[in-house]
């Protein structure tokens, strides 16, 4: 070892906030999710957190928010870093106000970006993952249509990356009309794997590769 000794011991680093990667988990908690589906969803949220906790950069960059939708749209968890994320225990009841939920998620993403800009914090393209077993229910058609149009425009402008994930027996054709990307279907109720995959994808984004089209690792568990 030369006299210069170890550079990594001598060089100091500037303190800068890490760029943030906001992720909204938009979760269907309508009555059709009762029983096994909602239990698996709850387990998956914990797996999501546990997996991300393993990655030093994910911990610094990812911010998770959880919004549930049934007859109401509820903000369960506003954006927090993964180490602050306490996975909620969700229950299933009521109808499926999906249009309103999509609007809320897009509103949140937009507001979060403005906050970042105001505070001089860099950020990655936000992600929204909508997990549902059904289609909009008990919601006026124009609300849903408006949400779909807004989503389409946002995707075209690369304002957000939105993924619709349909669980067992979901109406995939209906979901396809809402989401720009082909909706992904879960085989069975493989939520743990799904959330682990989601967190791996999140790590891919946090790994900051400039990208024209967001590439994700192919999900082994779901059909596209």
């Amino acid at each position, binding site marked *: 070892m*030369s006299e210069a000794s170890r550079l*990594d011991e001598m*060089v*100091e680093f500037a303190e800068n906030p890490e760029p943030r990667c906001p992720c909204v988990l938009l979760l269907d908690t309508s009555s059709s999710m009762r029983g096994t589906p909602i239990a698996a969803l709850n387990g998956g949220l914990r797996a999501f957190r546990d997996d991300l906790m393993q990655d030093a950069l994910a911990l610094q960059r990812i911010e998770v928010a959880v919004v549930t939708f049934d007859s109401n749209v509820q903000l369960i968890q506003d954006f927090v870093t993964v180490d602050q994320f306490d996975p909620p225990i969700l229950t299933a009841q009521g109808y499926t106000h999906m249009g309103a939920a999509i609007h809320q998620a897009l509103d949140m993403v937009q507001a979060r970006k403005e906050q970042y800009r105001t505070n001089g914090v*860099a950020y990655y393209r936000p992600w929204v993952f909508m997990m549902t077993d059904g289609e909009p229910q008990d919601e006026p058609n124009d609300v849903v249509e408006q949400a779909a149009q807004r989503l389409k425009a946002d995707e075209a402008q690369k304002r957000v990356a939105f993924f619709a994930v349909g669980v067992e027996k979901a109406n995939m054709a209906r979901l396809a009309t809402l989401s720009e990307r082909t909706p992904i279907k879960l085989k069975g109720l493989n939520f743990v794997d799904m959330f682990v995959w989601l967190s791996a994808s999140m790590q891919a*984004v946090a790994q*900051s590769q400039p*990208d024209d089209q967001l590439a994700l690792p192919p999900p082994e568990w779901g059909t596209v």
Partner: protein
Amino acid sequence: MSVSRWHVAAASVRGTSHEKTGQACQDAHDWRILPDDGLVVAVADGAGSATLGQIGAVLASWTAATTICARFSSSPWPRGDTEWGACLTAAVEVAQAAVGAEATARQVMRRHLATTLILAVATAEQVAVMQIGDGAVVVRDGEGNLVSLTAPLSGEYANETTFLIAPDALATAQVRVWHGQPTSLAAFTDGLQRLALTMPAGTPYAPFFAPLFRFVAAETHAREAHEQIEAFLRSGRVTDRTDDDLTLVLATVVS
């Protein structure tokens, strides 16, 4: 031939994210001593989404440095900022054409060789820089002041920047001719920018550069110096803060 006053140490290393995915390092660099004890440094970062980003980066940095070298092997330094700008533009255009030709030869779209490019030429009296994309060049003057000659530019998103193959790359490039006596110079790709600069202003963080410039001044063996820089870039302290490919070129004048 007299020995150059410049001590130079440089390395490009693969980041931990590419280690995980098995991708090659997409960063590249090149530097040459020029007549009249000038120095040319070229640094390039291949786009993560570009399948041949590594090729693009190597080709761009090598071509830019080689073109500058050829230009000044028999010509005097440019007179005035406009001539400097034209000189750098010409070299970057050659690099751009080379990347385009490579894409054609491989029958792929240009974006597969997308890369950033920083080109800096230092003489005893100025440092001229052209930058397309992110990363930055920092210079230390005769009084020990550190100056960022360029700013790491990104799009709305942290992982978006401009690439050499973009139609408007030259039109939107940063060009700066700094007048002064450079005693040290550093060029780096975006993986290090949050460690080396205070953002968002992009001002050089002195405790980052001081030990590195001292090291380069003291180190007389090129291979040792290279190995130490590599080891530094691979160290846990660095990889805890960035998983990106890393390039650092350091040059210090030693009298």
